[in-house]
């Protein structure tokens, strides 16, 4: 019995060890990818922030202007853009984004989804949600062109009144071990944010002199799609860095767990080995004793 146990343990060690090799390799790959994604994120953040700030200032200083992107409509259907990963093995990354999205959604009939990433698409498709669009295989290396095509689709849906509000669900990259799912309202422009209010106070008197060439409406028609594009691009970048960060952490702990497990099994194996040797000696001694 002891010998059989030994065989089993040995096989177990071998299998855990090969899993460990895989997780270790994945950890290394995702650290490299994470570094790249972070560098890219660092470069795009200024753009993302500047455009966000500018649009807020403009929106607050153009009060009284009638524009389809500014005026809230009665909400019959809400469009959600949900950014997930194409692949799993990244801890709670995908579930967290999807859960955050779900908790924000109302009844299923009043929701439509633009899914980015295979995981999110599969989730919403399986549950028969209204899918307006899907973009897969881009989450790891998003480009501005991807963001543009997503934005084009979203704006088209909004313009045709197929959706009355657009929410963007993504994961904000805070640090390698800390990522936070976030929801951002893209359309219609929400002017009641805190910073907007601050600007309003500060800009009183000043913003009235702001001139818009050729007209405020024309500027907004151009600017708002641009804003949506860049927000989506920024969110894609944040999400891709978060994905790699989450995967790295998940793989690191998987590797650690495997090491612990191997240690434990090794100890068990040694004990079993020793027990079988002891037993063997006892048997020989017993046999010799009987011959006397």
């Amino acid at each position: 019995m002891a010998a059989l146990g030994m065989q089993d343990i040995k096989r177990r060690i071998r299998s855990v060890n090969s899993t460990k090799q895989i997780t270790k390799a994945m950890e290394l790959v995702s650290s490299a990818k994470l570094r790249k994604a972070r560098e890219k994120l660092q470069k795009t953040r200024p753009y993302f922030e500047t455009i966000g700030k500018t649009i807020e200032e403009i929106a607050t200083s153009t009060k009284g202007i009638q524009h389809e992107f500014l005026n809230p409509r009665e909400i019959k259907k809400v469009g959600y853009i949900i950014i997930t990963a194409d692949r799993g093995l990244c801890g709670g990354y995908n579930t967290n984004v999807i859960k955050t999205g779900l908790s924000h959604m109302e009844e299923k009939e009043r929701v439509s989804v633009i899914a980015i990433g295979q995981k999110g698409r599969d989730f919403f498709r399986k549950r028969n949600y209204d899918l307006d669009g899907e973009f897969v295989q881009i989450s790891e290396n998003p480009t501005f062109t991807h963001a543009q095509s997503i934005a084009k689709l979203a704006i088209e849906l909004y313009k045709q009144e197929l959706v009355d509000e657009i929410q963007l669900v993504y994961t904000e990259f805070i640090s390698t071990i800390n990522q936070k799912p976030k929801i951002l309202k893209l359309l219609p422009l929400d002017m009641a944010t805190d910073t907007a209010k601050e600007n309003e106070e500060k800009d009183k008197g000043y913003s009235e002199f702001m001139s818009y060439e050729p007209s405020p409406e024309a500027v907004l028609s151009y600017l708002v799609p641009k804003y949506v594009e860049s927000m989506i691009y920024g969110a894609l970048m944040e999400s891709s860095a978060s994905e790699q960060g989450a995967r790295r952490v998940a793989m690191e702990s998987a590797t650690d767990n495997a090491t612990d497990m191997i240690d434990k099994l090794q100890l068990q194996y040694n004990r079993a080995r020793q027990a079988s040797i002891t037993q063997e000696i006892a048997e020989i001694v017993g046999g010799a004793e009987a011959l006397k």
Partner: protein
Amino acid sequence: MASKFHLEIVTPDRVFYDDEVEMVVLRTITGDVGILKGHMSMVSPLKIGKMKIKKDGEIREAAITEGFVKVEEGKTIVISDAAEWPQEIDVERAEAARERAEKRLESSKENTDTVRAEIALKKAINRIEVYQSKKK
């Protein structure tokens, strides 16, 4: 010395320019606009075209695609999809893009892609022009 103001040009993949300048000339959708210090506050979309930046009496040119400009007191921000100095322009790529766009314009009839092809053509021609003006 002429008085200066702060100019910031940001594109999705980098901060293209961030410095004190004397003058910047931009092509907005209503025409070329020269901005000096003390220009009135203004926001305007930009067209594909050349951009001139004057700093310490020296004028530098750059190619810029669609975007918009926001002028404030003492500070001007340009946000664009892409901006390039002449030495950064890949002329061969621009030439290839021009040919491709021209071909597409010839072959396609009434379809939506003509708009895209036209924009691509404009961008390519603009890049080639900026590159050539620098060489002279």
